[in-house]
């Protein structure tokens, strides 16, 4: 018997993340191929009224654990709930987004269910009934195809790679409430702290303005912040500028930082070393602004401007402001 597709639908402050809808959409596709139902697992707070959202993207049923103590990710609680649901249902596939939460949770499920997990997948497929996942490795230098030979087969999906699409037909999912034991936690998730102003995370942003060594110092990132504000984007950084202490590590795009795939990535004063490239190469459109015409970034940017970032970026901000004023 083929079991259903179970998808962990991650939420934040009572709202499902975009990556949750991406995972539900991909889960629906797999469920249709297998001719089974798709179940969504929602863990968080304030989600009771939101379960129909998951039906829009294709879930037949929502398993819901909704409690104020689940507002922040607590691995002990989330593992207990997810494991309970995985054991009570009989999924053949379990999906989650490859976010900090999904990447923490999925291996815990895999080891308890005595099965394997393909991390940060960019494509899923079947080969003689077994899940075959495509995933980047060696910092994106190669793409591996891996087969998950055990059931349930688990995969985490890299955010912004799969497209969230409303299903046809849309469903009004049945909701089943999942109980959990609060005593069973050795840890307390105490509070959420932000770095300065609360802003969109790089992995969720559709426009990223990134600065590298060419920015010359931390004070000069102001011009990037201004452009980001006009365009509704966020500011990222290269490893060189993070290692220099100009920007926090959470801003770093690349091998040891975030992997991003925004609609528009504007690289300012970034040479485009391999370790940066692997973190942003899946952006839809890449713009490079660099005074060095030989910079490797021009070898893979869609649009290049050769010039001084301190002249080009403020001009771009002015003209973008005008553009957005008209459009």
């Amino acid at each position, binding site marked *: 018997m083929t079991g259903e597709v179970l998808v962990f639908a991650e939420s934040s402050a009572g709202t499902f993340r975009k990556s949750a809808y991406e995972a539900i959409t991909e889960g629906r596709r797999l469920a249709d191929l297998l001719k089974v139902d798709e179940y969504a697992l929602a863990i968080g707070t304030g989600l009771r009224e939101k379960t129909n959202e998951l039906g829009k993207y294709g879930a037949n049923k929502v398993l819901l654990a909704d409690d104020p103590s689940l507002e922040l990710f607590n691995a002990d609680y989330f593992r207990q709930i997810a494991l309970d649901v995985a054991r009570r249902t009989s999924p053949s596939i379990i999906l989650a987004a490859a976010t900090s939460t999904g990447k923490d949770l999925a291996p815990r499920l895999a080891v308890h269910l005595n099965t*394997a997990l393909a991390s940060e997948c960019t494509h899923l497929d079947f080969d003689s009934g077994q899940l075959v996942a495509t995933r980047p490795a060696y910092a994106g230098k190669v793409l591996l195809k891996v087969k998950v030979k055990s059931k349930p087969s688990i995969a985490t999906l890299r955010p912004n790679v799969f497209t969230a699409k409303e299903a046809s037909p849309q469903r009004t999912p049945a909701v089943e409430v999942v109980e959990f034991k609060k005593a069973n936690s050795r840890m307390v998730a105490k509070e959420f702290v932000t770095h300065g102003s609360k802003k969109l995370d790089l992995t969720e942003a559709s426009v990223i303005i990134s600065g590298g060594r060419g920015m010359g110092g931390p004070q000069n990132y102001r011009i990037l912040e201004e452009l980001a504000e006009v365009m509704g984007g966020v500011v990222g950084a290269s490893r060189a500028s993070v290692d220099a202490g100009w920007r926090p590590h959470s801003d770093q795009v690349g091998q040891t930082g975030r992997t991003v795939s925004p609609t528009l990535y504007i690289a300012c004063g970034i040479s485009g070393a391999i370790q940066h490239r692997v973190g942003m190469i899946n952006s*839809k459109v890449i713009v490079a602004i660099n005074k060095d015409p030989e910079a490797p970034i021009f070898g893979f940017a869609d649009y290049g401007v050769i010039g001084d970032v301190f002249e080009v970026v403020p001009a771009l901000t002015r003209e973008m402001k005008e553009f957005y004023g008209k459009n």
Partner: protein
Amino acid sequence: MIVKALALGADKAVLLKSEETNSDPGSISRAIANELKSHEFDVLLFGKKGVDDDNQQVGQMVSELLDIPCVTQIVKLDISDGRAVAQREVEGGAIVVETSLPASFTAEKDLTIPRYASLRELVAARKKPIVVKTVQLQPPSLEVISVQNPPPRSPGKIVGKGVEAVPALIRLLHEEAKVI
């Protein structure tokens, strides 16, 4: 690599060797957990992921097998009075997590700045014990079936030089790429 770890502060090292090639994190985690059962510890520290397969699974799996709490992707760790307080980096900020000990943690890049070992430490490290054990790994459930090069991204166009290129760039982003 092991000598370097000993030079930077470890007192002894255990190297688990396997005859077969098996990169399934589940198999590797079971071997590590099995070994750790015969050791006493308050804290286990892992890196958040290996820089080869980028699986990011072993720290959590070992901890679940040993039934100890595990906080992943930490950028800060304080330990006092038998409890640990860690900050784990997440989208848009960090979550402060307090946990009982023994516990395990997987390190994000900002946790510490690795220093260089001094010559004296490197010499002393050569005298520290390295126990080598051969282990049998559980057969993999995750199998690599192909390795490909990612599709190349071809260079686009140079719009122009300096400030003069800005209007053309905006026009191209709007009309050709349709991203603004």
